[in-house]
């Protein structure tokens, strides 16, 4: 008992901070989701589903698609960093791929807004290169723009984790496979990826959660209908001062991220057991 008291005192400041700045607001916002003008009820959720059910599906599809693409691209980059045979190409790639890590989401949104527009930089280059005609140019400022922004911004983060894990994989397994004549692609898919699957999963789950909470990118690129839940939450508060429905929407997106987290936890428990 006497040993425990100082220990408790030591964690107390951190615990208080977490309680007051995280747990309490979370509890209040959960309670707020059920608060209606006539007491507690499900009105806010009824309204959320009536108005924003297409946005919920849209959000999950976008974030889901982005997560898959991030997974694929980062496996490709990580794989080349580990298995690539041209040291100069590897060095350049290693230097380049981290850049987007240091760029905030809002800047990504701003940059892509002019880059992906119908008469934006990308289409101008394609037209200039004679690849498309001006009439074929289309604007990417819709769901595709959001996916591009997410993949561009989150891939380096997952790759960083993944490349580290791949580097620490026992080289012997790779050499053995190569000696037996396996191609590099096959080594990547059958030897490397299975051994780093857990790290990949952590990276993807963290990316999913991050992307669910990004407001700036949908606001900058596509705040129309359908749009992402974060834009709807901001709109409920800004236009109507309606915290009830905003909280309900927040809780719904929390449920989505909780599903992913649960899946991840179950997987890691199974791996351990």
């Amino acid at each position, binding site marked *: 008992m006497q040993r425990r008291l100082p220990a408790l005192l030591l964690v107390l400041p951190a615990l208080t901070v977490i309680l007051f700045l995280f747990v309490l*607001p979370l509890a*209040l*916002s959960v*309670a*707020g989701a059920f*608060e209606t003008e006539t007491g507690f009820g499900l009105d806010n959720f009824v309204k959320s589903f*009536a*108005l924003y059910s*297409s946005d919920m599906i849209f959000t999950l599809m976008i974030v889901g698609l982005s997560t898959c693409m991030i997974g694929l691209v980062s496996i490709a980059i990580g794989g080349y960093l580990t298995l690539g045979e041209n040291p100069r190409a590897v060095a350049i790639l290693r230097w380049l791929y981290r850049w987007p890590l240091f760029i905030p989401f809002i800047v990504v949104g701003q940059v892509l*807004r*002019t880059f992906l*527009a*119908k*008469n*934006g930089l990308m289409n101008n280059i394609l037209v200039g290169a004679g690849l498309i005609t001006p009439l074929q140019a289309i*604007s990417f*400022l819709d769901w595709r723009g959001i996916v591009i922004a997410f993949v561009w911004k989150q891939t380096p983060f997952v790759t960083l984790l993944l490349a580290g894990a791949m580097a620490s994989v026992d080289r012997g397994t790779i050499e053995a496979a190569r000696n037996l004549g396996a191609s590099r692609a096959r080594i990547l898919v059958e030897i490397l990826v299975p051994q780093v699957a857990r790290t990949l999963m952590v990276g993807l789950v963290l990316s999913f959660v991050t992307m669910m909470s990004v407001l700036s990118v949908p*606001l*900058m*690129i*596509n*705040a*129309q*209908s359908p*749009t992402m839940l974060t*834009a*709807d939450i*901001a*709109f409920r*508060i*800004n*236009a*109507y*001062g309606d*915290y009830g429905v905003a*909280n309900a929407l927040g809780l719904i997106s929390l449920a989505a991220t909780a599903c992913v987290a649960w899946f991840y936890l179950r997987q890691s428990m199974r791996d351990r057991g």
Partner: protein
Amino acid sequence: MRNLLSATLALGLASTPVAAAELTVITAGDQNMVDYINEYLGPLFEEQNPGHTVRAVGTGPGDAGSQKIVERFEAQKQAGSETWDTDVAVAHEKFIGPMIEGGYLAAYRDNIATGKLVTRANADMALGARVSGYVMPMFNSQTALAYNPALVPTPPKSYAELAAWVTENPKQFGYNGIKGGASGVSFVMGWIYAFGEGDADKLMNGPFEEAETQKWDAAFDSLKAFTRNATLTPGNAGTLDLLSRGEIAIGPVWVDMFYSWQANGQLPPEFKLVLPAPGMPGQPMHYVIPEKAANKELAEKFVALATSPKVQAEGIVKRFNWYPGIDAQHVQAELDADTWNKLFTDVTPEDLASYGKPFPIAPYNTAILEAYEAKAAN
């Protein structure tokens, strides 16, 4: 939850010491509002009142900015602060009613000399709430359709003509929906004025009747079909961006933003404006003074300066391309004919008088936005 958050916020604010002669002006709206105070009005006031300083704080664009001001006042009221951290606030008219209802504001218009220079109806009623005495309009703003004459030689003169034009020219009209800024909101309100089966005057002047909100179904159905042929833009500035890049040919914009962009060279000089029948909404921004402002007398002096004919002419009309807040004849006398005419080149004073509408009163406003989400956007 809001109460607790507000209380925490207020606690933080209340503990900040108030400097004796620092006038704090908080303003909603785009960066140009903060620029106006920092670059023009603040220095002018400091020059006329040596020793005092003006501090401008922006709370962000659109309704969100004004909502933040309301919450800030609410927080200080609930915390029981004796002196508030704000001396003058600039807010959208939709939020003035709630501020007066909450008892946050001082009735000061009769205390200042320029109070008599305002007779326009929207300085007495703000979206159905009686505000006379509590506000001085900083400026009046108006939405209109901006178009590229190279692509649209004869612009549509009414909503009905526009609807027909859009079916012939799909994706050439762009607006920003209702979630990306007030120019799109304004366009939607104008659509309901034009095609709603109810009485548009009732939407603007009240009273609020639930039955009225059931009369918009056909209008929203046609708006949904219309929007399918339109391009959705990301925000007020987004519409202007797309116009300048030639991606759309016509779209609703704020008149002041249009002129400012043109003056900066961000829009080609040949672009023009048209205000379609039966009209599109505009709105004033209002100066208000909190009842418990720390420097109330100084605040009144500040607003009196800001609404004096000279400042309205030089600052509001000439530099920032807004329509004056006080009655136009007092301002016109201070300006040369060229500057004055520039403001009314495309949209004439007659157009403004017949087609410049107020926004619907607050409950209809909210009902239309929700109906848009449920019926036109889903």
